[in-house]
């Protein structure tokens, strides 16, 4: 198990600081907006890149997300977490972007994959797991990609992910199970031997 121990005092201070920033943004404070932007930039670009598969699209959707943060900051509920609120907005913006470009970044279905095991074997030799994972992630649905990314990159709990994706915790667990099965199938022995 990795060392994910968090200092609860520091974490609470960070959460309070982010809520303060959102309140300032609601009052039209651009400096507060910049600070929040810097805090979330890397995480959001990474999350959206995985969701959308292209960094250019990710940055565009990131700015659409932050524009929503700017315009809706007055409606943020102080009882919630700023991070789950922002990631929820980013997730919905990503799905909207995917719908706009439907057909280009649709997940590759099993029917379209010809001899997956052969393809895996050819690729394994020269591509490391990280690069291979980039390709395999595209075979997941956007919802499954979101669950994987929010869990492993953003370190969210399943209840936080259910809040971000606006679905029950059972749905989060089911999406994760399906994603894991697909990753095992497509990564094959490459995963286990890493």
């Amino acid at each position, binding site marked *: *198990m*990795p*060392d*994910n*121990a968090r200092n609860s005092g520091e974490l609470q201070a960070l959460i309070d600081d982010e809520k303060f920033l959102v309140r300032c943004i609601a009052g039209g404070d*651009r400096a507060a*907006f*910049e600070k929040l*932007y*810097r805090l979330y*930039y*890397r995480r959001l*670009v*990474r999350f959206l*890149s995985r969701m959308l598969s292209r960094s250019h699209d990710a*940055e565009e959707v*990131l*700015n*659409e997300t*932050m*524009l929503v943060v*700017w*315009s809706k900051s007055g409606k943020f509920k102080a009882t919630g977490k700023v991070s789950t609120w922002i990631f929820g907005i980013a997730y919905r913006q990503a799905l909207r972007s995917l719908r706009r470009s439907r057909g280009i970044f649709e997940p590759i279905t099993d029917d379209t994959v010809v001899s997956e095991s052969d393809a895996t074997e050819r690729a394994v030799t020269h591509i490391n*797991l*990280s690069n291979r*994972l980039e390709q395999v992630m595209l075979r997941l649905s956007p919802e499954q990609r979101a669950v*994987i*990314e929010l*869990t*492993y*990159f953003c*370190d*969210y*709990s*399943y209840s*936080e992910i259910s809040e971000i994706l606006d679905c029950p915790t059972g749905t989060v*667990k089911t999406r*994760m*199970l399906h994603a*894991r099965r697909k*990753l*095992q199938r497509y990564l094959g022995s490459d*995963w*286990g031997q*890493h």
Partner: protein
Amino acid sequence: MNDGPQIFHIADTAHRNAFELLPWYVNGTLSAAETASVAEHLKVCLRCQHELAQLSILNDVIGADDGALTLEPTMMRAHGLIDAYERDHGSNQRWGIFRSLWRRPTRTSAVLAMSLASVVVVALLLLKFDGSSNADFTTLANATSKSPAYELTIIFEAQATHESVRELLIDIQAEIVHGPSDEGGLVVAVPRSDADKVIAFLADSPIVSSFAVPERIPSR
């Protein structure tokens, strides 16, 4: 009895629960009770041990940093988007402040206040024109003439009472413009169409000592 690692069937509830929670066991976000439960199950489940090893690799690979990113130019574009948004929605937002103030409680209070004010104004008007009120000549003299046509100066007899003067003024539909003077005279306005009748009425009235007809009143 074998206490070592085993392969559990997926239908086993404890196994299924632990298997589902493994990703969040790896990222360390489970509750203490869930963590303990998964850890306990891992001791005896070969399938979950293998899965945990794979998920830990996945966690390391996905969790790795992507390297340099271009924050500043992207953030500048975000500011541009906000500028455009503010141009399009700025005026609406400004009015939005007033709209937000004009919420239901405020609106209800305002309507009640206006209704109450209307009632007060009507009551004051009724009081002002009530015949039984204590209005004297001064009060009547301060009343604004609505549509004066001709002004007459009337001098009353000494025995004329307050009430008799009032009845006369009502009879001729006169409105006091000025008075009473030291001689007991009133300047009143009468409708143009009734000028001849008013003059005849005043001439016959026992409480009128005399009255002056201005030049613009047609002479009899």
